[in-house]
């Protein structure tokens, strides 16, 4: 079943991305690399690829850094209510992205949105922005919303990673007179590296195929400012230009297969160690 729906379409993609397959003719002709040539020659396809890369890289950095700080805060700083905080911070992760997007459309509204109201309220008027309609800013607003939603999941993984670090290391370090900064750099971070690798890979795979958060927040606009690979794939698909759409998906498929293979290798390798 898995083969039928995930593997066959993937392989079929390799063939169909070299064709002029579309909704308007029943014939499918082989046209060589024309689809790929088109992708690499038109500005909006390029934009979608570069936006996807920016989205992926920035979300990886933001999520990793913020989630790590939160994980440390919850496992080292907070003594009580640890589970309560974790439940609340994880909550956005289970809410459908489509819903999150709709709520943030109102929060980020330039005139009436809660975010700008709040900034005005505390006297930071100059920070108020056209969050989703300013082409230079829209992509980063989308990134912000996505980070808000995704942070809890990454944090939970990191907390689990922190819990398996033996406390003896910290006790020994304290005997040697290490401060908490030393402990972080010389114990926590190195021992957390395998966990960070996994979260980075998860964020990477997620970022490359991002779709719904963009779709509901900006629909790829303004202009092509927030267009990502999967939003273009869907738009081409709805226009009936299946060939180009397939070619673009196939590019992504190849990139992600390589990343996915690598992720799985790391995870299986860790299993052997454990």
């Amino acid at each position, binding site marked *: *079943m*898995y083969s*039928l729906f*995930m593997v*066959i*379409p*993937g392989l*079929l993609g390799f063939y*169909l991305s070299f064709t002029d397959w579309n909704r308007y003719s029943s014939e499918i002709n082989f046209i060589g690399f024309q689809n790929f040539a088109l992708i690499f020659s038109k500005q909006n396809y390029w934009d979608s690829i570069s936006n996807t890369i920016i989205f992926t890289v920035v979300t990886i950095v933001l999520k990793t850094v913020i989630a790590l700080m939160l994980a440390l*805060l*919850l496992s080292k*700083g*907070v003594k*009580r*209510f640890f589970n309560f*905080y974790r439940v*609340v*911070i*994880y*909550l*956005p992760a*289970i*809410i*459908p*992205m*489509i*819903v*999150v997007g*709709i709520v943030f459309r109102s*929060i980020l*509204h330039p005139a*009436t*949105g*809660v975010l700008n109201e709040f900034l005005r309220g505390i006297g930071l008027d100059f920070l108020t922005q056209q969050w989703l309609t300013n082409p230079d800013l829209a992509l980063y607003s989308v990134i912000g919303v996505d980070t*808000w939603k995704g942070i809890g999941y990454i944090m*939970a*993984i990191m907390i*689990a990673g922190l819990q*398996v670090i033996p406390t003896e290391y910290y006790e020994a370090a304290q005997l040697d007179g290490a401060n908490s900064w030393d402990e972080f750099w010389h114990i926590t971070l190195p021992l957390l590296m395998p*966990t960070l690798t*996994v*979260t980075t890979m*998860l964020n990477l795979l997620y970022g*490359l195929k991002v*779709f*719904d958060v963009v*779709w509901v927040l900006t629909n790829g606009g303004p202009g092509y400012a927030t267009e990502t690979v999967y939003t273009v*794939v*869907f738009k081409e*698909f709805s226009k009936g230009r299946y060939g180009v759409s*397939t070619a673009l*998906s196939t590019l*992504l498929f190849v990139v*992600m*297969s390589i*990343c*996915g293979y690598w992720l*799985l290798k790391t995870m299986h390798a860790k299993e052997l*160690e*454990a």
Partner: protein
Amino acid sequence: MKTNFLKSMPANLLAILISLVMFVPIYLLFVNSLKDEVQSRAMGVEFPTSIHLENYLTVIEQGKLGTAFVNSLLYATGATILVVFFSTTTAFVLSRNRSSLNRFLYFFITLGIAMPINYVTLTKVMQATHLINTVAGLIILYAATKIPFGVFLIYAFIESIPKEIDEAAIIDGCGPFTLFSTIIFPLLTPAWVTTAILSFLDFWSEFILPLYFLQSSAKWPMTLAVYNFFGMFEHKWNLVSADIVLTILPVVVVYLLGQRYIISGMTSGAVKG
């Protein structure tokens, strides 16, 4: 004790602040779902001046939420059952019978956790199998996307069940099917419950697959119905909020009841203790 508490005060304050940031949007939805149209226009933080529970009734009638709810429930439950069935059986066979073919199959299946779906070519497969725009098609599709994860999670768990149990059961005259259904499956309960909850939540939130493969609005799940409703009533935030509250209510309830399973399940794949 008291000094300890004082020492952790800054950390607690920070944690409370962050929790607030995470919670504000959900709070906004809830208060605004109770306001009238004028007051909810700005989707503000203030409490409603008068409670308008009838928003919920309006939404259920106009947003066709009843059908959408039943659809979502049907897709999510159906697919979850398929996932649990196929994941447990597949994982059992692959884990107990380690031929090199099975090792390869395990690797191949778990690769699916990371793989993207090629939606466009998938339509061709769906057409060929006559599953496009059908309830059964969507359920099977949902299930197919989550089976790799289920196999991965349950496979690791089966390894912790001693093989001697199988052997003892076989000596007592158990066939492979009774062995699985009466002995292994009950032992796997924590693993398959985790898989089931996680799958259910994901299926409930799924937006892309129905967007591509369901054309008729009568078959739409909650996510598509909400999205469509938002398009129609963009400025009536009280109704949109009520609609959303009803959509997320089931997942929030499932989450609060099963949060231990959820958090441990989501992280067990990534971190091996």
